[in-house]
């Protein structure tokens, strides 16, 4: 209820501003000022977190860099605004940032009533479960009669109730006020399973006494598609963002990565030629030049490289591709044809 009122108020307050901001043309603004002001999270493992040298790292951060490489030619021309969940939309609406790349779930209400547009999906997140390996459970459907540690008053709790009811399984929720309490209870063995968003599960697993002794189950029981957000009504900027995501995916699909991108320009594959601007005027149509996809791939990497570097199996988070694999490898990541 409060959220609805908040949305309504914000929407009402921004209606006029958004309409006028739209005509400004973020792409031209960005080119003129020479950097992209990118809104990121103040800290979410694997998505945006500072390193010890004070640089931002993570999957959301890498999208900002890729965009800067595409638009301005240099991945380092990004200025970051760490934003809390509460102020992120206002920061975008008021023009304080050019792009919100902050693990934001794409929902209908946000898309329609907040004056925002979602450019696409960079990461399919969803609520998952973690169990001790010694329990021998391999699937969430086997959690019959399990006690589950969960944080109270979150959508997580409701999603879980829906899931167990839909699958006609009985379960025992063990609720806690704070995320860290919930995890501590799970770690001391007060419940059989722990549930939160899958990307968070991996981070929580590291905090356990014996991270290797726990398994993240493959099922996701809710949809949390996360992606970059731009202001409503600025179609050109939206296009640039959307097709950049597709270009990163297409590059992975075509086997173009940061190391071989220059050789791939000589490829005979017409799709590769179009992606890398050897053939056609894809970049010009977006208001960029024809090297628009080469630079982000070279400086930041294709989607697989970005994923593996920040959240992939070799990082401490250790996430499998799962739903984030390419469509032809059993995942949901699908690039619209670049032609």
């Amino acid at each position, binding site marked *: 209820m409060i959220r609805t009122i908040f949305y309504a108020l914000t929407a009402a307050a921004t209606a006029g*501003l958004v309409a006028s901001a739209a005509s400004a043309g973020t792409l031209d603004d960005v080119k003129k000022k020479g950097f992209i002001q990118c809104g990121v999270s103040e800290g979410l*493992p694997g998505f945006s977190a500072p390193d010890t040298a004070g640089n931002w790292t993570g999957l959301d951060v890498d999208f900002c860099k890729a965009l800067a490489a595409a638009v301005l030619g240099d991945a380092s021309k990004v200025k970051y*605004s760490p934003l809390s969940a509460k*102020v992120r939309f*206002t920061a975008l609406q008021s023009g304080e940032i050019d792009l919100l790349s902050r693990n934001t779930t794409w929902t209908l209400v946000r898309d329609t009533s907040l004056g925002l547009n979602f450019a696409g999906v960079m990461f399919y997140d969803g609520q998952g479960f973690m169990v001790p390996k010694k329990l021998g459970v391999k699937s969430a459907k086997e959690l019959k009669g399990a006690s589950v540690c969960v944080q109270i008053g979150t959508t997580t709790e409701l999603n879980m109730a829906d899931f167990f009811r839909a699958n006609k399984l009985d379960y025992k929720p063990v609720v806690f006020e704070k995320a860290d309490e919930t995890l501590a209870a799970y770690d001391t063995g007060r419940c059989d399973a722990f549930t939160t968003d899958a990307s968070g599960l991996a981070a929580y697993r590291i905090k356990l006494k014996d991270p290797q002794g726990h398994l993240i189950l493959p099922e996701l029981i809710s949809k949390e598609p996360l992606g970059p957000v731009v202001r409503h009504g600025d179609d050109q900027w939206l296009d640039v963002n959307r097709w950049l995501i597709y270009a990163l995916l297409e590059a992975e699909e075509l086997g173009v990565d940061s190391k071989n991108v220059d050789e791939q320009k000589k490829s005979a594959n017409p799709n590769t030629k179009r992606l890398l601007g050897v053939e056609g005027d894809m970049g010009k149509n977006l208001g960029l030049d024809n090297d628009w996809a080469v630079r982000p791939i070279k400086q930041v990497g294709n989607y697989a490289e970005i994923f593996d570097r920040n959240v992939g199996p070799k990082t401490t988070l250790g996430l499998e591709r799962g739903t984030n694999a390419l469509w032809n490898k059993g995942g949901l990541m699908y690039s619209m044809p670049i032609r």
Partner: protein
Amino acid sequence: MNDRAQTYLPGTHPDLPPPPSMVGVYGWLRANLFSSPVNVILTLLAAYIIYLAFPPLIQWVFINADWQGDTREACRREGACWVFVKVWLRQFMYGRYPSTEIWRINTAYAILALGMIPMFIPRVRGKAWIAAFLLFGYPVVAYYLFYGSAFGQVVVETPLWGGLFLTLVIASVGIVGSLPIGIVLALGRRSRLPIIQSVSIAFIEIWRGVPLITVLFMASVMFPLFMPEGLTIDRLARALVGVMLFSAAYMAEVVRGGLQAIPKGQYEAAQALGLNYGKMMALIILPQALKLVIPGIVNTFIGLFKDTTLVLIIGLMDFLGTIQSAGTNPQWLGFAIEGYVFSALVFWVFCFGMSRYSQHLERKLRTTH
């Protein structure tokens, strides 16, 4: 001479030592810890709690703690991982301020310290000039040092400000700004002019009636939406103004308490001397009133200093914010407790320092009536 006990003439009796049970360790224990059955029980209970709590704490903080190394792998032992604090210390102190420019912050700290030291030495003359510099000149110097651009240094934009540095900036702007505004509001509230009085009352009651978190939200979420298009005011500046006005409302009430404690005779005497309102307040009333309420003022300052941590909910990376965000780096997950312990220690040092300074000030300004 006879065998009677020695007697002394009046006034010549030597001071005898007190009975052994009243002095030394034994006497102190008896007087302070075991003076009654209830106190004996309480003492034993407290000793038991200390016995339960302290050894594990010492073990965690010192004995089992990791101090060496600079990676996560260095933290293999059961105790605290101070490596985490060590590795992130620069960020905790300065946030993401560029490392090549950190000398600017340190220079500003040094100037402040140089300015403050003479204030503690009684013999130094011209304290008023130093104080005037610290209050009016120093903020300008500090602004150009921190933000840059005056003498051709690189501009360091406020999103890069962070850590303890940002906390100190917010707290000092709040402290320095709120006192004068608070005094004006307090005088306004006691004014006989109805408009000034009602405006002051309205300001104080409205700002005091909302939580700081609301003020910060308004400043960072609602305020930008009311601004004309293309005009964005820096997020830090908005928060600074919010914090300043908020604490000014509290300060006004503290000062008003002091004003009310001044006897009416002081006002009448000042008027009888022919002083106008401004001179009466500046020379007679305020010096006495402010001296009375030093504990209250410092109390407000300490509260304000700790409240500054709330800015992290609007995405400003203050001291606590950088500690929390350091804990989200995938390489350094799971060291939140070390970070919080460290921040508690730093906050305590600053608050205790402020408290000691206020006691020093009270002693110095004491004039017994």
